[in-house]
């Protein structure tokens, strides 16, 4: 794990958890804004 202190460690390809969360939230927001998702109830 020592090599993590410098930035040489290769990160896995693809989005991080935060990246996925933001992407999904933005897609949902776009669907609501465009009227595809309407009146989401609770």
């Amino acid at each position, binding site marked *: 794990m020592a090599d993590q*202190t410098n*930035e040489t460690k290769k990160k896995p390809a693809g989005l991080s958890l935060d*990246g996925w*969360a933001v992407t999904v939230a933005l897609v949902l*927001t776009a669907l*609501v804004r465009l009227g595809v998702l309407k009146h*989401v109830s*609770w």
Partner: protein
Amino acid sequence: MASSTAVLRAEPIQFPRKIIALLPGVALLTVVGLAGKVLEKSIGTYTKAHHIVFPNIEYVLWAIVVGLLISNTVGVPAWFKPGVATYEFWLKTGIVLLGARFLLGDVLKLGSVSLVLVLIELTLSIAFMTLLGRIFKLSPKLTSLLAVGSSICGVSAIIATKGAIDADDEDASFAIAAILALGALALFTFPPIGHWLGMNDHMYGLWAGTGVDNTAEAVAAGALYSDAAAKIAVLAKTTRNAMIGFVVLGYALYWAAREGRQAVGNKAAFLWQKFPKFVLGFLLISLLASLSVFNKDQIGSLANLSRWAFLLTFAGVGLRINFKEMKKQGLRPFIVGALGEIVIAAITLGLVLGASKLVKL
């Protein structure tokens, strides 16, 4: 810790297979979350119809309790675990969506109050936890992990620091177990104390956001009080999470100097790497809401989507608490964590009560 190290390994992503593996656990989160909603509604209807005086227990607590019962009786089978672990994804998605309910001006105003409180809390918590670790003769790295976990944001901070200071898996497991157990305890103690002190939603939300360690538990502790308190708790906790990079960098530099290792090269890149990017998503949605991109109906829909995401998160909080596993980690780190948490809760409570005298909360 196996799961956290597995995440760090570079493996080819087998997308469809990965998604399919998540489905059973996500379904379990949904069922447990819905059970919480059904229990709240049916118990409320029953007690009202039979004129029974019974406190209204929110779906949040029911979902956690149902999850906790499953986890500690029949257990969570291995094939549910990958999906159950997505609770953190739902938490972050829910926080980003919650941005629609904040105008950027409110974020800046409340965020700056939170930031001042968070900076004081961080300094005092790290100093106190370090002192406690020395008194109880815990290993210095375990002490560092507990200090970071209790002062910033629980499990993610511990995992980030573990890599940066080259700590053992065992120390990280100890620290994570203590932080999770204490987070669960906060769910049952913070709301009654808040009610007892007659705190308003803003004050309580700030306290939950600055005093409860793990983000999921902080949001749950807020939601157990009120919807408005949950909103403020999310903002305060997000401010706290944004500090993660600075604290982890500080510890990385300290341990590198102490062990004579090569220090962090590019500090700006390190800070960016550790910065929780979902905060940017939250700010973006909040900016769009401030620019009136959404109408009232759409803001309502986004808020409800955020609630659904949090419902899955709360179910996951209960499902991952396993008392038997926690017992295995031993008592000393737990005692240090518990003592630290009590003091941190008292400090943050004092800070919030003090701030409420200076600014209108």
